């Protein structure tokens, strides 16, 4: 059971990490235009949050 949870969390975060890069460098501005002129450190800071919330963010983009 514990192993199952750990692997699911690991896979989920790995997918999120891969998706985080297009998000922070381009896709975020479709949801929040204020990120257009955001600084590089800010984009890097957004990577963990994006890796965690990627399904929600994908839904927001496709909904638009």
């Amino acid at each position, binding site marked *: 059971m*514990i*192993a199952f*949870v*750990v692997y699911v*969390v690991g896979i989920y975060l790995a997918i999120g990490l891969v998706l985080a890069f297009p998000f922070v460098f381009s896709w*975020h501005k479709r*949801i*929040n235009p*204020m*990120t257009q*002129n*955001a*600084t590089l*450190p*800010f984009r*890097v*800071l*957004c990577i*963990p*949050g994006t*890796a*965690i*919330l990627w399904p*929600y*963010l994908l839904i*927001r983009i496709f909904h638009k």
Partner: protein
Amino acid sequence: MSDAYRAVQWNAHKRIYDLIIALSVTGFIALFVLFGRVFFPPPENISLPILLIRAFGVCAMLMLHIILIIGPLARITPLAAPLLYNRRHLGVSFFVVALLHALLALGFYGGFGTENPVLAVLDAPPGSVPFEFFGFLALLIFAMMAATSHDFWLATLGDAWWKTLHMLVYIAYTLVIAHVLFGALQSEPNLIPTLMLLLGAATVLSLHLWTGAREVMFDFNRNPLQLEEDNNAEWVDVCSVDEIQKSRAKVVQIEGQDRIAIFRNDNSLSAVTNVCAHQGGPLGEGKIIDGCITCPWHGYQYKPDTGESPPPYTEKISTYEIRVEGRRVLIRPEPHPPGTHVEPVPFDPWLNEGDSE
């Protein structure tokens, strides 16, 4: 406050706050290790990695308790307001300390084996309480909170979702209590650490219950000011000018409306909503700094006459029509749209109650 996103929005106050956090954490870890070395000399010497794991764990527990009591404490005494102002940075620092505790434990107990180190640490023997797993789940929640603590996430997720997400801290806190109770404290012959843990939990719980009860009392006991039928509820007499201290506010509640904060800036009054546009902080518990209403929670500022944040920021709050008759303050209960200009109303602070009649 929002203009263009930056990684960290530091100001002089926040830099000092962060410096104090860094120095306190470093000092605590150093002292903990030093005391461990002095009080547990060889042969029952506790090894350095274990001392460090415990030092980071205890430090994280202390920080978590401080974070959880700052909110209710600030409702009770304004002395706690400076702590609340930058709680977010304290929260992220806490996560870093908790993560270091977890990484050290992972390296020490699970490293260099043939098994996946995470599973090696988390897999409890059959029949025992999986306290490491409780800690792991709590750490996941704290990671999510730290990762989404920036205002960008508040704007992206919306107020309600963001708050719901961050309310998970109470589940994480319960998991942490279980993690410590079924973990480190099981092998602890001394009762003091267990009592301290229970005392901490009781403090967090009672402060939350106390301030929660006070809020309920405010809403139900203080009889919201009634609208008067005979004058079409045009103006409501809410208080005397003498009840409002300089650069501070009086919070009033009119039936069917949100709370309103009436601020005194020098010798004029302005009324705005009591709800901050950032995270709903109680503006009326803040004060006027540099001519702006300053929220006690994270320092967002608004001009008293328009409810707008000073440029380049763009937040806005609702304003209300206000009037002074003699010493009495009257308010029109319908809010203006956020950012609407309402001329502040001057009054004579030296006039006595009787002089005005």
